[in-house]
């Protein structure tokens, strides 16, 4: 290192040239990706934001008219609120989505952790179990939601008729949310388990041997070693699952139908407004609101827990 010091000025010039060339090359290589991102992510996002301040109809988007923030909040001269933020149904959807996210992610993490710890041990048939536990995750959500809807049916369903003796769980949207959480937990716990298992596998085994030698109980090992070391992997998994749960759509839509899904999930509300009611402007405003809500939650998550993605 020190021997290179005298010749440094000349070398820097040379490296800069190479670096600049490399940077140019990298840019060219990245360009197709950047264009693709701009086209498939940037443009739709920009259009959504554009339409959120327009009064527009889905069937004739070209006739859009600028209305400012009226789609969000606007009270007519007769004192009627027509912005979506003045619609109690929207707030019900927000409340239900938050409940769904908190409860289902919590349960998935707990169950996922238990499953991961079990399949992390050495026993016969471990490989089979690791594959088998992914089955619910591999089934498309639409299919599993329909399957569960049949199981919840009060006149022929395994759960509705068999276990509960003819109760209709999905009939009342307030109770239905718990039935939906059960479906999500059933489906996604295995994914959570897989993420946690990956984290567990990276922990050094000699550390546990040492702990055993020192006489630490399994319980202490879990709380003092496993959990703190697992924290980064666990937080990344939590962020992913929370974001997924916040934009849940298919479970509600398939199991409750378009109208009730709109008071159960934010995305269901957005779809009903934008598609069923063909209110392109208001629907886009709702989509922007969902985008902002999720962004705020991500920022809180990342700063509060100091999550590192690298």
């Amino acid at each position: 290192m020190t021997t290179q010091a005298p010749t440094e000025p000349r070398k820097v010039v040379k490296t800069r040239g190479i670096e600049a060339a490399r940077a140019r090359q990298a840019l060219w290589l990245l360009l197709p990706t950047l264009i693709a991102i701009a086209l498939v992510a940037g443009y739709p996002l920009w259009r959504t934001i554009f339409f959120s301040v327009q009064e527009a109809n889905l069937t004739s988007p070209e006739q859009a008219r600028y209305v400012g923030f009226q789609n969000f909040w606007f009270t007519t001269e007769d004192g009627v609120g027509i912005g979506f933020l003045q619609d109690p149904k929207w707030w019900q959807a927000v409340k239900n989505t938050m409940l769904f996210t908190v409860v289902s992610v919590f349960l998935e993490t707990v169950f996922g952790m238990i499953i991961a710890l079990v399949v992390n041990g050495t026993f016969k048939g471990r490989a089979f179990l690791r594959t088998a536990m992914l089955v619910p995750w591999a089934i498309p959500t639409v299919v599993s939601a329909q399957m569960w809807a049949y199981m919840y049916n009060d006149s022929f369903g395994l759960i509705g008729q068999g276990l509960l003796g003819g109760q209709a769980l999905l009939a009342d949207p307030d109770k239905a949310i718990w039935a939906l959480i059960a479906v999500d937990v059933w489906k996604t716990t295995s994914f959570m388990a897989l993420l946690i298992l990956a984290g567990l596998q990276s922990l050094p085994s000699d550390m546990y041997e040492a702990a055993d030698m020192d006489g630490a109980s399994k319980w202490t090992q879990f709380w003092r070693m496993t959990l703190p070391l697992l924290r980064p992997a666990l937080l990344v998994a939590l962020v992913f699952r929370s974001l997924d749960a916040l934009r849940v759509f298919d479970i509600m839509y398939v199991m409750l139908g378009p109208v009730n899904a709109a008071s159960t999930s934010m995305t269901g509300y957005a779809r009903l407004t934008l598609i069923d009611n063909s209110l392109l402007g208001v629907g886009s405003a709702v989509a922007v609101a969902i985008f902002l809500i999720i962004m705020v939650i991500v920022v809180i998550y990342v700063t509060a827990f100091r999550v590192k993605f690298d």
Partner: protein
Amino acid sequence: MKKAIALFTLTAAIASGSHAGAVTLTIACGAVGQELELCKAGAARWAAKTGNEVKVFESPNLTNDRLALYQQQLAAKSSDIDVYQLDVVWPGLLAQHFIDLKGKVPAAEVNTHFKGIIDANTVDGKLVAMPWFTDAGLLYYRTDLLKKYGYAAAPKTWAELATMAKKIQDGEQKANKTFAGFVWQGKNYEGLTCDAMEWLVSFGGGTIVDSTGKITINNPNAAKALDTAASWVKTISPAGVTTYGEEEARGIFQSGNAAFMRNWPYAWSLGQSADSKVKGKIGVAPLPSGGARNAATLGGWQLGVSSYSKNQAAAIELVRYLAGPAEQKIRAIEGSYNPTITTLYKDADVLKANPFFGSLFSVFTSAVARPSGPTKSKYNQVSQAFSSAVSDVLSGKSKGQAAVAQLATNLARIKGAGW
């Protein structure tokens, strides 16, 4: 002479076929009950006759889902689908995307259909679509069970229906614990709007929004109608009735697990099919009265040609054929789809397959339209607000009086500056 005529028609057919050139059309059909098979068969008959090819696009079961799909296709000006099957409440919503059939279909041909349905398909003087089949809510009942429990005829009022359903249900549940008295469409979607419209009108509660666009829902009769319907849930109807669409209700009735069912005419021929457990035991009657009148909601489907179709001439021919008397007759006999051509209600073959078509003719002609005309492009929102309010009453979350008052406020919000 006969030979000459036959030869002439044949050459004419070949000539017109070759004139149009063999094209491939796509038609979007529904898949409720036998819809899809009959649509495929009808399209195939036309294709064989004209030498063109017709692809059938299967659209979703629930009418809300179907509309959403259509809107996306049409807003994108997609030419993928040439002929769309349209619900009777959609012409006002989608008119701009369909070609005007007035002048393209001879007036004499148009006039063979029910005038009311042609009116429903005419938006600002433009004939958006040709009627394909009409629909009206009907009461299906089990003739064998009525007899068993000592009833001579179908119920005339909702109160009578409740009493009969309760008695039959209690009796049948001794042997079959999943047996239900009365099944209908209680899921929160367009179908519930149809069912609830029938309750409203039969109780004299108006039609949500009247023909001048005034919101009329907040009245005691409407409240009473909704409270009456709510009293059926968990007494004569299963708790899960609020999750049923047309096919769920039919599934229960057709497997012999219900005494009464509210459904559309299509359920008749399926109920009479070989694999049906209630074959030969079904009776059909007008829906009961709530005191004011018997009421059935007007349903029905039409065929429209997309403005973005690349083969409009051929597509119009397909629509004319499918909506024509020959095809409507086949559909009436095989699938009990109600014709929109008046003369078919006097056709012996049609009446033989569907004996109730003749006796219930007035039900079909006096069916009540949903307020899609006055509420125009906001109809969907009106319908959703209505079905949600009804749903709240059915699930016991609110009472009729409070629900209609709240609904009136919501509708005012949707109406905003005007329909």
